């Protein structure tokens, strides 16, 4: 892959130019934290952010969206609503890039989801290499997501005065050509890149005490593990862990009529397997009533079931669920505890 060099002072102008043609999402400061939001001024963008509260999936699977409109008039009509506009997500970290690959598979499987896929197809990704872990909760190195060699249109690496840019797709190439003036890398740039990436390596720690590839087989032994009851005692069932998760995609569908009862919109809204009523079915039965069963379900989705379904682990090691949990339910500690107990036997 050919490395290009983008002087940092070009970035605000590049973003401003992109804003004329695309909705541009980027990391912005939000109080003491960061959030992915549409940019209205390139100066708002904080490429030095550590982690965003919600993952940038909000640009592709919004918390709530309209998916159809019903009308009662001379007859009954249903029209799908597909809200997709040309979009650039700027500054995505590689953990979220790996998560996006999983979302793409999930929304393409069985019944391709036109709402997501149309938006995805109109979205370009400019990712950025992390040179240090977000904080003590990051475990991207253990999950193999602390870097990426695909999934982006452009990928930036901070070289100090400049960004090294890898071009991942033809669309990325076109974007770089049209909106910036990158130059080819010199030998000195390549040496600088190697220094930066070499310095990155020791800053990241493995936090799983075993190889993440063992997770599916480890969990296969742990369905009746006592740890689930312990997590169930602590869980508030607030759904924060799944709402901040970059790979969670479950939603609920709600029909909302207007007051004339002649027109209605069908909305879909994020849902969470951690909520009390998530598994209530039409007969009135709730097949996952206990908090312990719901936490087990989440951990199994992340460590086993999504892997079996899509060939990718459902956890990318971003640590958002750990930061969001007020009762300190920690997916790394949980996996490590199961691993330790299975090895004591």
């Amino acid at each position: 892959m050919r490395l290009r060099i983008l002087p940092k002072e070009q970035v605000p102008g590049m973003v401003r130019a992109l804003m004329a043609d695309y909705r541009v999402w980027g990391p912005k400061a939000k109080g003491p934290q960061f959030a992915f939001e549409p940019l209205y001024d390139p100066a708002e963008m904080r490429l030095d952010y550590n982690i965003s509260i919600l993952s940038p999936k909000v640009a592709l699977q919004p918390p709530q969206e309209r998916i159809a409109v019903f009308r009662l008039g001379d007859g009954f009509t249903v029209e799908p609503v597909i809200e997709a506009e040309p979009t650039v997500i700027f500054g995505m970290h590689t953990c979220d890039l790996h998560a996006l690959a999983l979302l793409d598979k999930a929304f393409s499987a069985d019944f391709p989801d036109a709402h997501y896929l149309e938006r995805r197809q109109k979205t370009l990704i400019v990712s950025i290499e992390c040179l240090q872990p977000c904080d003590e909760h990051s475990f991207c190195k253990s999950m193999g997501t602390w870097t990426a060699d695909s999934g982006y249109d452009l990928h930036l690496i901070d070289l100090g005065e400049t960004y090294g840019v890898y071009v991942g797709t033809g669309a990325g190439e076109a974007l770089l050509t049209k909106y910036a003036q990158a130059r080819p890398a010199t030998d000195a740039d390549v040496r600088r890149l190697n220094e930066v990436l070499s310095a990155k390596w020791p800053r990241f720690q493995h936090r799983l005490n075993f190889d993440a590839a063992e997770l599916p087989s480890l969990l296969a032994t742990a369905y009746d593990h006592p740890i689930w009851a312990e997590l169930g005692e602590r869980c508030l069932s607030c759904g924060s862990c799944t709402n901040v998760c970059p790979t969670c995609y479950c939603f609920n569908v709600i029909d909302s009529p207007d007051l004339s009862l002649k027109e209605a919109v069908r909305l879909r809204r994020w849902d969470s397997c951690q909520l009390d009523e998530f598994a209530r079915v039409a007969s009135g039965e709730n097949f996952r009533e206990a908090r312990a069963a719901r936490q087990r379900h989440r951990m199994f989705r992340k460590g086993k079931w999504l892997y079996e379904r899509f060939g990718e682990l459902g956890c990318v090691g971003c640590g958002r669920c750990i930061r969001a949990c007020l009762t300190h339910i920690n997916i790394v500690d949980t996996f490590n505890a199961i691993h330790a107990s299975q090895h004591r036997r």
Partner: protein
Amino acid sequence: MSQEHVTGRKSQNGKPKVAFFDFASCEGCQLTVVDALQTHLDLLDAIEVVNWREAATLDGWDFDIAFVEGSITRPHDEERLRRIREQAKVLVALGACADTGCVNTLKNLLPPEEVRRYVYGDRAEWYETYAARPLSAVVKVDAVVPGCPIDIEEFVEVVKALLVGKRPPIPDYPVCVECKMKGNVCIFHVGGICMGPVTRAGCGAICPTYGDGCEGCRGLIPHPNENAMKDVLDEAGLSVDDIMHYFTMFNAYREVGTGKWE
């Protein structure tokens, strides 16, 4: 609520007839309905108001739907509420006072004589009061609009649900869900206190969105993990007394019922 379609008893113009009543309350929830009429003009195309002391000179008793604000604080309130119940096909508790008892039920935590002296002074014996309670302690309530005050959009959603004969879509999940969906910084992460993890959503997490912790005005979710929540508040530095204050400010009836009064 009743499976029967509320539109079964329509006025001649085809709209369900609606009445508003109040008991012990600040009447702010009815004011919010007045607000809703300004932002949703089509409400009056959908319903016909036949009785509303606060906002109209109407006193009809031929209503299908009764929205009742306020909690019950006197034995003789019960008789009036029962009359409303007998007439209404659908009785809706409007706002926290009617739904959960709200701050009115704080008095249930205190000795009755002390409270009556404090409020009525040396005329205390003139006034007949008893422990404050939500409507559901006296009559069957078919639907609720939670909150102190109610949320305009949620009120409109409840009206729509009643028009089509469906159970109103009041969330049974906590405020955290809506707060996260807004991408807010968690109040606990900036040193605040918030009852969001155990409080019923539906307000759009309005308080945390503007930087204040949730105080639980919409009542608790159906199965709150109270022990875990108390641990969270303890870790945030609250004393046992303060934790109880957070659990009782809007939800004393849930915690102690009629408390020291019976």
